[in-house]
């Protein structure tokens, strides 16, 4: 689809926060990366697709059991459902769950959510409370996260709210190990993958300081203040001397994002 076909009106509004998150994710992708997309993760799905439809035609996507090449898809009708019947006709291979798990060492990027994240990137999908037989809040379960986070090359953690009850000093349970107790603890545990690279919330994008593996602010999303982030984080977040501005997509990229990838406008909210 040529950019000329994107109605001018669609490009009027400046990038929305979720679009910027998606663009940030797109920038991390390299051509040829093997990426696992999940369901109900429209931001990361949009980001990967934006890279795929522009700079990275060789991205390999697995969405649940489908290995797909999506660069020739005209329009994505539902960003939440990337393993949909509509898209599965682009599948080039369909694998069982155990075969897919065996493919994780080759996976460059995966994405996970969490009920809680701590300062070393450990995540919790199990529940909140201290007694497993009497939890205050029971989560949906670890799904694939424990093993995938242990093995895949890099992953990002994406949560829907930036609040002290989500970004906690210590997870009540750990469904996936990020950097354990920090420093070289992940290596000492013998976990083969590279660990979490970025944490993305509605307020900010964080990475991990290379030595201590302590979570560190990287970008503030537009309109969010440093105080707001610090006050809504349940642990002491590392703040770099200079907080870089988040990169903005070009008009061409924004056009592709709005006209082809996010046709429902779920990121424009």
């Amino acid at each position, binding site marked *: 689809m040529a950019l000329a076909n994107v109605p001018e009106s669609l490009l009027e509004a400046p990038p929305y926060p979720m679009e910027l998150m998606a663009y940030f994710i797109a920038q991390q992708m390299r051509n040829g990366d093997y990426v696992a997309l999940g*369901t*109900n993760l429209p931001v990361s799905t949009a980001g990967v697709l934006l890279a795929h439809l522009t700079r990275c035609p060789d991205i390999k996507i697995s969405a*649940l*059991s*489908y290995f797909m090449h999506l660069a020739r*898809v*005209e*329009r994505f*009708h539902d960003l*939440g*459902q990337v393993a*949909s*019947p*509509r898209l*599965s*006709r682009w599948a080039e291979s*369909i*694998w*069982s*769950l*155990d075969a897919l*798990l065996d493919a994780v060492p080759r996976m460059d990027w995966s994405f996970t959510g969490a009920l809680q994240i701590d300062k070393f990137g*450990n995540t919790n999908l*199990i*529940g909140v409370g201290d*007694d*497993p*037989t*009497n*939890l205050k*809040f*029971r*989560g*949906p*379960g*670890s*799904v*694939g*996260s*424990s*093993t*995938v986070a*242990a*093995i895949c090359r890099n992953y990002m953690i994406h949560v829907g709210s930036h609040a002290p009850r989500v970004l906690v000093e210590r997870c009540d*349970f*750990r*469904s*996936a*190990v990020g950097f*354990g107790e920090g420093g070289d603890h992940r290596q*000492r*545990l*013998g*976990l*083969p993958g590279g660990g979490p690279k970025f944490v993305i919330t509605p307020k900010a994008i964080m990475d991990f300081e290379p030595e201590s593996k302590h979570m560190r602010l990287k970008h503030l999303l537009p309109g969010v203040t440093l105080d707001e982030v610090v006050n809504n984080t349940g642990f002491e977040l590392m703040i770099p001397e200079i907080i870089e501005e988040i990169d903005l997509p070009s008009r061409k990229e924004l056009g592709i994002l709005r006209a082809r990838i996010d046709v429902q406008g779920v990121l424009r909210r």
Partner: protein
Amino acid sequence: MATRTPKLMTVEDAAELIRDGDTIGIGGFITTNKPCALIRRLTRLRCKHLTVVAAPSGPELDLMLANDMIDRLITPYCGAEAVSPILPFFQKWAGRRFQVDEVDNGTLIAMLKAQIQRVPFLPVNVVGTSIPDLNPRVKVIDDPFGGPPIAVVKPIEIDVAIIHATRADRWGNVQHFGPLFIDHLFAQAAKKVIVTVERLVPNATIRGNALLTSLPSAFVDVIVEAPYGAHPGGSHNFYRLDTERLRMFVDGAKAYFAGNPEPWNSYMELFVDGPATHGEYCEMVGMSNMFKLSLERLDEES
């Protein structure tokens, strides 16, 4: 000359093969290819004290939990994605009315493979997570080759596996027209295997597409022809999930916990206890409603 024995049964007869106290394995994935017809029948029978080992699960599991059928649950997930990221009975009663042995997909798969391969344990990459603390089958041991300690998981015996697939012949050869998920592992790990299918096909159709056979007859004890057998979930290449009826389920369950059991009881009566057969269930949903779920309708544009 003796002739080959068919493996056909009805949903109703097949459900009788599962006994109180059994360990059952449930295939499918979240809201796709779940053996819902069979589970509804089991629920109508109020089968009790089950240990359930399940692939990531949806409302079919919550239905069983709602009816106190499960003593011990081993599954990596219980939710219905966009409809309900986590399901009510699981969320409210986990740990309280039934025990949860925590697993992720990798741990569950290793547990089944250890059983299949008849080895006393298999290693899993979950050191540092809570899984070794929250699952009595998982233990952290020293690496005999001198690396860091590693978690290992014990095998689990499955009495009966229940699986929903696309088609089969009467002899028990099964084909999935989509992802297998871990259905093959349940079939291999179980002592008895029941498969419901959308369609029965001639053996020649299976042989003409032998590369597509996902479960050979050597692993299958019972075939049940159950069109719409995965409803209200979806079935590979046949129908998508029935969002409307899933919402009735979720809303009923939520009302139950909000102190209004009426919608839930009505759901149970209409869809579980009322219909005497799977056929009657389909009629209760309404065949016009069923036909609307046909996947082709989604493909108009793309």
